């Protein structure tokens, strides 16, 4: 296992090129989660708390969008940002910003759909209590989002996991440019095809470690919250 051990050496030696890639991955995916949360949390909450014609259709669509193929999202954002596209003048294509946008589009439906479900379940539980206190519509939304905060952190982590693991969208809109838009997943794909297995495996190890750490912290947070908040 010569390649395995050189992968480990690469990871442990703190190879700067490798860590730049890891850092960019985290920055892009965390920004995407932030952006998606800004849209997805209120949107999911709003759909949970309102009744309007076509609501069932919106929910079905949202749930279906949870499974959007990253390459299709990448293609759509590519068309939007390409020089001849509607937002081409922004000059964002093949930049980290474009990658953030693509991943945000990918995971906003996930966050919105899961938030909708969570808030709606909570609402059916506390509806009478809140109505008896005369809580207005906006306050109701804020109250329920805050009340579901633990579950919603898990929702955000699910979004992050999806963003960090996808390769298709960032490959298309980022272009996998060395030192600029290369992230873990695109680097793994490239290095594997080039035959540089140690680097690919090193990155793979780190990716798995990050996913593991995220799930462990989500679990720990749940346990803590269940004890503290109930």
């Amino acid at each position, binding site marked *: 296992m010569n390649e395995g051990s050189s992968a480990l050496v690469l990871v442990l030696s703190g190879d700067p090129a490798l860590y730049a890639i890891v850092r960019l991955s985290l920055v892009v995916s965390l920004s995407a989660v932030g952006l998606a949360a800004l849209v997805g949390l209120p949107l999911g909450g709003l759909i949970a708390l309102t009744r309007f014609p076509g609501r069932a259709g919106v929910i079905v669509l949202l749930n279906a969008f949870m499974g959007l193929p990253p390459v299709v999202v990448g293609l759509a954002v590519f068309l939007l940002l390409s020089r001849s596209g509607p937002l081409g003048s922004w000059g964002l294509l093949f930049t980290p910003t474009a990658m953030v946008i693509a991943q945000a589009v990918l995971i906003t439906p996930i966050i919105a759909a899961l938030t909708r479900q969570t808030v709606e379940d909570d609402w059916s539980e506390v509806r009478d209590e809140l109505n008896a206190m*005369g809580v207005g519509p906006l306050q109701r939304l804020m109250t329920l989002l805050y009340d579901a905060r633990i579950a919603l952190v898990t929702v955000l982590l699910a979004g992050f996991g999806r963003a960090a693991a996808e390769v298709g969208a960032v490959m298309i809109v980022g272009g996998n440019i060395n030192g600029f838009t290369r992230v873990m997943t695109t680097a793994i794909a490239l290095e594997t095809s080039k035959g540089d297995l140690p680097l690919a495996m090193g990155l793979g190890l780190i990716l798995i470690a990050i996913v593991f750490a995220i799930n462990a912290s989500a679990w720990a947070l749940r346990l803590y919250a269940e004890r503290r908040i109930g």
Partner: protein
Amino acid sequence: MSDLPVTLTKVSYVVGETSILRDVDLVVRTGAPTFVVGPNGSGKSTLLRLVMGLITPTAGAIEWAGARDPAPRRRAMVFQHPVMLRRSVAGNLLYALEQAGVEKSLRDRRCSELLQKVGLSDLADRPARRLSGGERQKLAFARALARSPELLILDEPTASLDPSATLALERLIAQAAAEGIKILMASHDLGQMRRLAGDVVFLHRGRILESASAKDFFEQPVSAQASAFLRSDLILED
């Protein structure tokens, strides 16, 4: 701003084919506690929820101080199964105080007063969702008082309390009534009704069979169902 009197005129509540309440006429006005009694499923909770304005009658009308607007102004309710927010005990009270429009600088003091009143001071920092059934009932009572209600609606508030906690809550209810808060409560406890009730509304299968002063209800119930209810708390099907 006032909520009293609450006037129900020919109120019915029908879900699908089942009529849960039929032709209810009732006026809730200032005075001694009104008890709503009747067997399980007779419609007590539904009646209380209508008076609270949480559900809309399918026929008839409800007016609060002459207005049809169901937004709660000076009324509060303790539910049969109270639900708390995922916050501490004090956090739940502070939330209720905020919603009731109590000024921020006054909330902390009011919160500890209320906790003291219901005997939950030691549990102020506990997660409210972790309280026992009885503790939750007490917190729900404090939370209702946080609204400084004029009308306090209680749905079997002592159902899950031990005898001494029941007595303590009855004292709080009596105290609230003495302070001029109108109490409208559902109960199965005949002893409690004797101790607290000013008048009684007897429900049977969604109809008000009797509406009388507590004294009259106990001494000379008109309907056979009410007599049977008083004798054994058990009503045989007609």
